[in-house]
């Protein structure tokens, strides 16, 4: 099974940021067998990384691996929708 690589872009400690972090952590906990790497980036601290990844909105979750690259924008308030979009069964 491929290893999952995620980047999660947030803005400080807003409610939206916390919502997104909670959902992604929940998914990873549910799928305990999943091998993954998750980077959490605060765009206020690292705007250059946001520039490299061409991130406009926060929160944004980018799934880099396995291909294809997919983006999720929003506070990820629907766990099932997120799992389905990322192909995590």
């Amino acid at each position, binding site marked *: 099974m491929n290893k999952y690589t995620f980047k999660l872009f947030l803005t400080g400690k807003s409610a939206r940021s916390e919502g997104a972090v909670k959902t992604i952590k929940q998914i990873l906990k549910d799928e305990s067998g999943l091998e993954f790497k998750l980077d959490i980036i605060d765009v206020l601290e690292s705007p250059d990384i*946001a520039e490299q990844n061409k991130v406009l909105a926060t929160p944004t979750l980018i799934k880099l691996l396995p291909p294809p690259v*997919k983006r999720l924008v929003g506070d990820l308030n*629907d766990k099932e929708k997120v799992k389905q979009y990322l192909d995590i069964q």
Partner: protein
Amino acid sequence: MKNSIKDIEKLATRIPGFDHISQGGLPSGRTTLISGTAGSAKTVFAAQFLIEGIEENGTGGVFVTFEESPDDIKRNMSSFNWDIDHFEQENKWMFVDASPQPEETQLEVGDYDLSALLARIEYAVNKTRAKRVSLDSIGAIFTQFKDVNIIRRELFRISAALKKMDVTAVLTAERTKEYGDIARFGVEEFVADNVIILRNILDDEKRRRTIEILKYRGTMHQKGEYPFTIIPGEGLTVIPLSAIELEQKSSNVRISSGNQELDKMCGGGFFRDSIILVSGATGTGKTLTATEFMAAGTKKKEPSLLFAFEESREQLFRNAIGWGIDFENLERKGLLKVVCVYPETAGLEDHLINIKSIITEFKPKRVAIDSLSALERVSTIKGFREFVIGLTSFIKHQEIAGMFTSTTPTLMGGTSITEAHISTITDSIILLRYVETYGEMRRGITVLKMRGSFHDKDIREFKIDSKGMHIDKAFRDVSGIISGYTMQSNIRNEIARIDNLFTEDKQQQ
């Protein structure tokens, strides 16, 4: 609020002509919406705004692109010789790439904002110490996200944040029609203070670009549409026609027309900084008048410049030799410059820019344009009028003498469009006309107008030979020359008629 007009400072953009029509530039520290249809040069304006700042005093600029990739923009702007790559290396120019990434898919789940974009803009502004920011073009971001309300709210926030960053910004937006809503998606709502419209209109089968400042809240600007053009190697240039103040000082210094008799008819020659219109049918001697006018300047060792729109160089030089004037020799001495251009090679805006740049470079003391009316056919009437006004005021600002020739539409006279639009702004008008007398064609000359001076009111006969123009006595027994309907009058009958008039008058009393 009384003093608000004074309170808003303007930032000189240095986009040629724009600062003139905007009376100083863009409102400093604010965002101005630049709206236009596809192909109306919005991106050129946005990019040039940054370039002019960098080239003037090294002010950094940030280009936020929502539609095209930075590489595409560099490629599209490459014809202007703006070295964006170099400015990027020097940290004077930075792109914020907000263009769509076609190879990725995106899904929206829940609420979001554009804080990342804002953080990136702020980062770029700090890094380049930017004072100027361009956002191009805003409509494209609405296609990247589904929730229009969120985007609108976020753009409002970005616009407010730009104000806090103390940068002057331009925000471009598309419109669907040249005359209609200001922009799509109602974007003018959040940058409502200042709106500029760029147009690319098909007018009488000819493309015409115009710029209009629609709103400049609390500050002064010129009203109406001004033509502009896009010049390779330079960029956008606005032509500030009627905005040019007509406040030229007039001089009392006289210069020779190149013909002694004509000088006498004008009361001692033309004024040094005047505009002279020479009107006549084809073959009446307009090119000769312009040639002699040029020759007189070179005789005084003054550089003289001739623009020919009707005849080829060879033809002109041959004509001049035929009248005893050696153009080739004068050019070699650097006293004369003859520029031959086909009217059809460019639009009028480009002709105007070209004429101006040659005048600025050659610094002549007198300029002749033969003929101005040849340029009528490449433009609409409105465009031609703007051109003539722009050209006239430019020449007057240089404090040099300008002679325009104009070909009448019919052989026997009549008024051309040129004359209709130029007669009020010229200082002198000279008419050359064919005169039909007793089955013979002769030529007549008259000074119709000579601002600020006495002049001969006669219509005098002239002949052309290998020495040029010779002005002779006045036509005494012909009337209707100027209108083109000449009539010979028998002097004896005329006296009798006048006598009768008197008797009738007496009877009435």
